[in-house]
């Protein structure tokens, strides 16, 4: 009896950090426009930030700028596969970008009404400032005039 329980504990602790197999599950989760694919409980997959954005957008229907979360499993894949992505990721990102365009009525790369996005990290635990954040993706020479026309505020566009 004693040995049995002892073994059980040992097993639980010995277990090495499991190497996640590449699952063919959903790679991208959309949020915004009053709905979300994920929710606040999915921190392992969506990271703390992504899960809470989904919770705010989907469950609480708060005003969250629409977007999507690429899962932590893609990060694992990236590092296990010489910094490459699962094959379907490109199509998934494009499809989700379309969804965002539809909600915002803006277009990524459009000259007249360009959509700009931010790209941020989000791990399961908060790591403030430890990883990268890139803002204003989609701002190019072509889209700059569109942004100025849209905002009517030239200074602001160049400020970015």
């Amino acid at each position, binding site marked *: 009896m004693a040995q049995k*329980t002892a073994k059980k504990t040992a097993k639980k602790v010995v277990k090495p950090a499991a190497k996640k197999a590449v699952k063919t599950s959903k790679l991208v989760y959309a949020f915004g426009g009053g709905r979300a694919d994920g929710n606040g409980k999915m921190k392992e997959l969506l990271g703390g930030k992504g899960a809470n954005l989904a919770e705010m957008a989907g469950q609480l229907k708060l005003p969250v700028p629409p977007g999507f979360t690429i899962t932590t499993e893609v990060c694992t894949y990236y590092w296990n596969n010489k910094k490459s992505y699962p094959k379907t990721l490109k199509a998934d990102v494009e499809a989700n970008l379309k969804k965002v365009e539809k909600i915002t009525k803006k277009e990524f790369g459009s000259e007249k009404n360009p959509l700009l996005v931010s*790209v941020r990290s989000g791990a399961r635990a908060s790591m403030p400032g430890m990883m990268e954040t890139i803002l204003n993706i989609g701002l*190019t020479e072509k889209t700059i005039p569109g942004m100025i026309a849209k905002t009517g505020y030239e200074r602001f566009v160049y400020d970015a």
Partner: protein
Amino acid sequence: MMYSDVVMEKAAGIEPKDGEGIRKILDGKLADLKKKLGVTDDTAITAEELKKLCVEFKKTVKKVLGKEFPDDPSEQLWGAIGAVFASWNGKRAIAYRNIENIPHDWGTAVNVQTMVFGNMGENSATGVAFTRNPGNGDSHFYGEYLINAQGEDVVAGIRTPSPMNKWSSNAHSAHLPTLDKTMPKAYKELDAIQKRLEKHFRDMLDIEFTIENGVLWMLQCRVGKRNGTAAVQMALDMLKERLINKETAVLRVTPAQLGELLLPAIDPKAEANAKPIAKGLPAGPGGACGVIVFNSDDAIKLQEAGKNAILIREETNPEDIEGMRAAAGILTQRGGMTSHAALVARGWGKCCIVGCSELELDNVKKTVKMGGKTYKQGDSITLNGTRGWVYDGALKMLEAGEGNKNLAAFLKLADSIRTMKVRANADTAEDAANARKFGAEGIGLFRIEHMFYGKNSEAPLFILRKMILAGSEEERKAAVAELFPFMKKSIKATIKAMAPYSVTIRLMDPPLHEFVPTLPAKQQELAKALKISMATFQERAAGLHEVNPMMGHRGIRLGVTYPEITEMQSRAIFEAAAELIKEGVKAVPEVMIPLTCDVNEIVKQKAIIRRVYEEVVAKTKVKKLNYSVGTMIEIPRAAVLAYEVAGEADFFSFGTNDLTQMTFGFSRDDIGSFLPEYLKQGILEADPFQTLDQRGVGMLIQHAVTEGREQKPNLKVGICGEHGGDPESVEFCHREGFSYVSCSAFRVPIARLAAAQAAAKEVLAKKK
């Protein structure tokens, strides 16, 4: 600017020299332009000038990085996604995970989100807020914002943010306009949202928001970091508000946060007489006193030398993380309550003052001017992180914790949940009294030999030495008899100080040669008292020498070879108890036998103890003198044979220091030469002397408890090694059904919380 730095430089693995990164270069160009135009604020630059600057930037990027700035949005997007994934294994991210014990295989997600702009003019703003004050726990919406700015600006600490409302205002921001006044509609909406969020998540949240042309957008919410004072306040408040149950409330304060409330603080008397030389924002609590350093490397060097460093920076950035960790306190010139330094310090409970704008910092000369005086590296200053005040020199520090009503209330709550008792290791009446202040419910380890160390040990130590170096049994017995009154007095005082709680008295443990004097003068004095020549003295001392003393003639082995020593100790214990009972003090001594390896050792010692007990009862005529005899379990053989051992022992107390030492075969005093390598190579996950090795040593403990209780179902089980105050180990003890843990007095509150959290987790798991 950001894209070239993060995606084109860092993610491409380019590591420029300090001050030569693309961002620094571009920043320099921006600064030059501002100088040329005679403006100080970014917002004062005209669109036309900015446009020119953009062209200039692009040219520079190409020149420095040898690559065009990508003008294709899709290329930009994938570049950015790759940069984020790559940054998971960046140097500073790895360093942070090592410090915070975050597994390296978790990975990060990437969030791609529509940009909203807080820098679209005077009708736009951005901010960071907390549903309650993270610095003191007040139940008011708390935060900072900047008009016409992007989120980065608030956290970066470049512009001083304005307070959200009156509750967020401090001495530095009192003159700035609050959000509820400048944008009442958006504020009202935000306030309603933060209330909903807190109800929904049932915890204090950290919120990031942006107002774009008057429209409010929520950019992020997460459970907010808070310091220990705030954590305790919020746990108590939210319980009162019925937002959470008592188990959750107890789990809301980590042992480290509780530790902050027990942190050193400046002695209020010393502080009252000192004048602050500078004032900043109180970002991290407690007091810190140390010498000034100006960079992280120096802070680390000082810590390695065992000294306290106060790290002074213009502002901190993630590269400073290890130096911030090493410093006793952090002082920055710029940044608000949500700046990097403040966030990190708050998370660690480290004393920190930010936004101390009156500092005149010279990083090249390594000097700082405060209050009209110039300080250089190595000068002492003292910080009060709770107030945000800086003092000249080293002020007197205090151990805090006493007189804190919230702390007392919270620990009372913890006590109502925990099922395991918490005792202290204490060797004197003073220790015992101190341990009771921290809430100890008894002494789990009273080391009888302690009276031969430290204060007032001269007289008994001299007699002990006579005993050790005695030439005959007669001589030894005479010395033992001389020693008796000292021992009785010490035991009596300690039991009295801890009454009515129990005291576990461990019989003599250390190897005797430890007490042989090494100073020639002391040796001569002792030889004279023993009436022997120095040559004889040296001969006898040499006879006590052991090759491997920790596994030599010590513990119960002393009692086996010198039964008169056990006899004298037993008599001291029982006479002390009998006298206390006569005085009306409750005294039920628990006699503990150290270093047992076989049940027969206990049988022999118990016979002596029993005989002395009967003699004492006959002599003192005290009727209700009760006692128990138990054993330490610190030799693996005793743990393996626990079923037999429990037949003769009333209690087990796991001495996890020795048990770890002997299970691993690691000499605790010699691990320095190899353990660091074991940790580096990942052979062992943690130092087993710091964190109980649950797999190996833990399995022995589990076996011993199960077997021991099979023999004797009501067997009392405790732990008295260093691990008794380690939260993880305490949780292990709870799971294994221990009766109590015993640790040093100042760890008692931590152990009380850890025991309560272990019980609370069990209750919550059942509810699910």
